[in-house]
């Protein structure tokens, strides 16, 4: 298999795509909270200054203003670091956007542990959990540049509130051009029949690399990019889980309330019971370091995931022996 080709940070692809779309439609607006640098929106601000609404470091106001703009027919992307947007602005997301059904696109940048060694204040390991507990907000976490571009294009006309979660690391290309992308529909990156690696966001490429290691060790691994937590592709997850012995979920989020919890809840209630392991950030004072170092510490690496998969499969073999 060819090694994965390097691409750009998803945040860069987001801002490039949005600039293109905004040049064609002056109703496309960006609302920022002194976050144009992190959001890679400096070029957008220079080229389309009339389409930027700056509110300063004020996430509550950011979300409320975005709701007001959306209510007046604007296509609004409210961009702020995920850690602040979904904690400081949480009640505004709940009431002004989700409950009021204003089709704002909330863009959480530098999500998960993107900010790495800046520490826990700058990590967002809670955002998927809290937003999944609100109704009426769709949640999209693109894995690579292709998914990011497709997600932004889909978001423009999305009729419901939407949370788009992005990271700042340069990603590898995972999908062939022309791969279908629909919000709510998981993408199979690799087909396998012994273990399924179900990942979201920046961890998908690690799952793909883990699948290659497993292939070299004689294990057939399926890889799903579950870029949408809501709507959630229950059919694809169930179909996949039914034909494998083990499922490993992977996410850059707390092990509580994110992708893994969503998958586990679905499988248990459907009576589908492969061996299951939720890989993410555990319930402890988070290890400090770069994103890569934090991932390594918690086994979110190609080798870590491959080993987890093998341990699950071995356990299943012992049970059925």
């Amino acid at each position, binding site marked *: 298999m060819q090694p994965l080709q390097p691409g750009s940070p998803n945040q860069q692809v987001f801002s490039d795509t949005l600039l293109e779309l905004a040049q064609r439609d002056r109703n496309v607006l960006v609302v920022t909270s002194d976050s144009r640098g992190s959001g890679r929106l400096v070029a957008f601000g220079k080229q389309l200054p*009339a389409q930027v*609404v700056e*509110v*300063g470091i*004020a996430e*509550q*106001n950011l*979300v*409320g*203003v*975005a*709701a*007001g*703009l*959306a*209510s*007046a*027919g*604007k296509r609004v992307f409210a961009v702020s670091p995920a850690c602040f947007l979904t904690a400081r602005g949480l*009640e*505004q997301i*709940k*009431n*002004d956007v989700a*409950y*009021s*059904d*204003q089709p704002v696109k909330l863009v959480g940048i530098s999500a998960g542990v993107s900010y790495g060694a800046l520490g826990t204040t700058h990590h967002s390991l809670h955002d998927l959990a809290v937003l999944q507990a609100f109704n009426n907000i769709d949640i999209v976490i693109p894995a690579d540049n292709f998914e990011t571009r497709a997600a932004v294009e889909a978001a423009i006309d999305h009729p419901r509130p939407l949370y788009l979660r992005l990271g700042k690391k340069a990603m590898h290309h995972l999908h062939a051009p022309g791969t279908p992308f629909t919000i709510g529909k998981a993408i199979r990156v690799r087909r396998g029949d012994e273990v399924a690696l179900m990942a979201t966001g920046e961890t998908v490429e690690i799952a793909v690399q883990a699948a290659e290691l497993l292939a070299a060790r004689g294990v057939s691994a399926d890889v799903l990019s579950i870029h949408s937590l809501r709507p959630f592709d229950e059919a694809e997850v169930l179909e996949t889980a039914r034909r494998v012995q083990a499922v490993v979920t992977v996410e850059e989020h707390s092990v509580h309330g994110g992708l893994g919890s969503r998958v586990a809840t679905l499988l248990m209630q459907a009576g589908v019971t492969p061996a299951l392991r939720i890989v993410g950030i555990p319930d402890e004072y988070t290890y400090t370091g770069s994103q890569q170092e934090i991932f390594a510490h918690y086994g979110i690496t190609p080798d870590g995931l491959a080993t987890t998969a093998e341990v699950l499969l071995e356990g299943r073999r012992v049970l059925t022996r």
Partner: protein
Amino acid sequence: MHITELERKSIQYRKTILASIAQAGAGHTGGSLSCTDILNVLYNRVMRVDPRNPGWNARDRYIHSKGHSVEALYAVLADKGFFPAEKLATMGRGGSHWVGHPTRKVPGIEQNTGALGHGLSVAVGMAIAARQDGADYRVFTLMGDGELTEGSVWEASMSAAFYKLDNLVVIIDRNTLQITGRTENVMALEPLADRFTAFGYAVRTVDGNDIAALVDIFAQTPFEPGKPNLIIARTTKGKGVSFIEDAVEWHHHVPTATELERALAELDQAEQRWQERYATIATR
């Protein structure tokens, strides 16, 4: 609508508010009665709205930031014909959209509110959008005074001034009471006019239970070009019923059958006095 007719409307709205709260068995009596005259003047004299077409693009927008006083808003919207008055009887019942805080499920309501300190930011977003579109609609929002301790109010205020939103009219229902007691004892707000002025508003103070004064102050907007408008409306919580006025326990006390009867009797007398005063004008 003439000022004398507006005065009568306020008496009728207050009866509707009390009756609907009593029937629902829940509601915010004091705050609804304090802001009745403000809503009356806004909807019957100031704002450009069309009850038959609530989504009309050119409409003025109103955000009820002090969402707990929704009963006053329901009374006015029903009277305007946004929805049939019978809907008020469903308030607080299972499955009704006429819940204890405003939602967009009710015709005429722009935004779901109830968590305090949210309305102003939304109003700012609407006012910025009007500017960008070259539209001449205005955006009004009403905040309670107790609500002003929410930090988000001041975030939003900074942006209202920064974007020079003179198409935004912010009204404070300054009834000086919140659920625990006097605002000045819970968390002092004064000098309130100075604080808002410092944040960049053009500030005016008015008797918020005086219809003529309210009509006059709204007619003066925009107060200063390039500045958001802020009206401190000095009101009496529970206005219009002697034993409810300025009484902290009536924040969300629901009138008993006896209290409702006494209150309605007082309001009937007020309406009688109104008729005696204006009968000659009305029949002329």
